[in-house]
């Protein structure tokens, strides 16, 4: 009998460990990304310089490869677990109980909030990372004017609306994912559980609100 780590990781619990770890990596990433975005409130130069420092650091490639790997693991694993779970529960009940005891909206919609977030992520990279390339210079250094991309995008009401919907879904996904990751990894204690849940709630609101501050600022204040 193969008792290797692969057998453990390919079990339904092992695959949840992978979901939790990859999810937590991205949970940290979105916070860092959101905080970076807030530099737009300081000004175009600060924003562009930050972006320039990030992309000109050679370690960015390792970080990007890691993020791609983790999101791929998270998405593929999540979809295949969802498919397994649809197979193991082929029939639902004729009546839905009046009080769906326990299950939150966020927990029931993870596959949808996750799938839409993934589509958003790809489009988001196309729009910004691989979008129109404008040049500017700050203190004599030539760099990309990513600030201009942001202002142009968020001047369009349609794009602001789509971005808002997606970020609300990201927040919803984070809300269940945060506390759920700790439960999956077995980090659970009566005194800790409420703290984790409340912190996750605050974390998802702060992340979603932080991201949304940018389009609202650009559209309503600058536009």
């Amino acid at each position: 009998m193969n008792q290797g780590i692969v057998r453990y990781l390919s079990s339904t619990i092992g695959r949840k460990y992978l979901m939790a770890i990859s999810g937590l990596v991205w949970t940290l990433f979105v916070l860092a990304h959101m905080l970076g975005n807030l530099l737009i409130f300081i000004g175009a130069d600060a924003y562009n310089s930050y972006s320039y420092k990030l992309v000109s650091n050679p370690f960015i490639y390792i970080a990007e490869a890691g993020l791609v790997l983790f999101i791929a693991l998270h998405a593929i694993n999540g979809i295949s677990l969802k498919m397994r779970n649809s197979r193991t529960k082929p029939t639902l009940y004729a009546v839905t109980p009046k009080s769906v005891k326990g299950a939150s909206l966020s927990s029931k919609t993870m596959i949808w909030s996750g799938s839409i977030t993934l589509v958003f992520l790809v489009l988001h990279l196309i729009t910004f990372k691989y979008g129109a390339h404008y040049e500017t210079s700050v203190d004599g250094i030539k760099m990309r004017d990513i600030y201009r991309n942001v202002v142009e995008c968020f001047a369009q009401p349609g794009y602001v609306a789509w971005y808002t919907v997606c970020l609300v879904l990201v927040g919803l996904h984070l809300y269940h994912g945060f506390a759920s990751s700790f439960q999956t990894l077995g980090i659970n204690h009566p005194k800790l559980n409420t703290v984790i849940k409340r912190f996750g709630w605050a974390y998802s609101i702060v992340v979603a609100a932080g991201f949304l501050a940018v389009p609202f600022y650009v559209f309503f204040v600058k536009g």
Partner: protein
Amino acid sequence: MAGNNNSRTMRIHLKVWRQKDKSSEGRLVDYTLDTVSPDMSFLEMIDVLNGQLVGRGEEPIAFAHDCREGICGSCAMVIDGEPHGPQTGTTTCQLHMRTFNDGDTIVVEPFRAKAFPVIKDLVTDRSALDRIQAAGGYVSVSTGNAPDGNAIPIAKDLADAAMDAAACIQCGACVAACRNGSAMLFVSAKVSQFALLPQGQAERERRVSRMVWQMDEEDFGSCTNMGSCAAACPKEIKVDNIARMNREFGRAMLFGQQREQRSED
């Protein structure tokens, strides 16, 4: 309050899942009972209906039951979409008709999960849970006289937590309630009751590994931490046990391999 109800009876409409056998298609069939006592248990109400069905020459409704005291885990049906019905911490046999209102329509279905195939009407085959238990849910002891109960000191809080986990009656309501058809609340309760006690330490890694692998083999789903299982559990087993099982499984993965290897060789 029960005394006041003795004088009146209720009219109850039922929609019950009827299915001839494993391979037949099932459907919901309407029945109406005119004189249901509020003091009847849900199962007694079905007994009355079955009496009428037999009298009319029809096939009675098959349903699983045994002790009717809420401790055996035999009775298993989904009442209005909830395993064991709307009352929390209560098995179907301990659910009384006073929970419902006169004139209510109640939908009764079997537990649904791929691992629980319907045998007939409301009876499902839940032997998959037995096979998980047999895979590792035990403590090996040498034969001989029973040891003194207090020979091994156990902290009160651990003993309480183990006892709470051991309250699981293996009814399968957690699987029935779960949108993923996951048996993790059941398996975690069984893992916990041993993992918390000194007697369970000897086979700790082997137990959790084998039970989880058996659970996967039986085609139960994975946990998405929704908590519907704990909400439906008639013995109010907490999802904290699932976290403990996840911890035990991770421990076995990281530290338990040599020990497991040696025992297999």
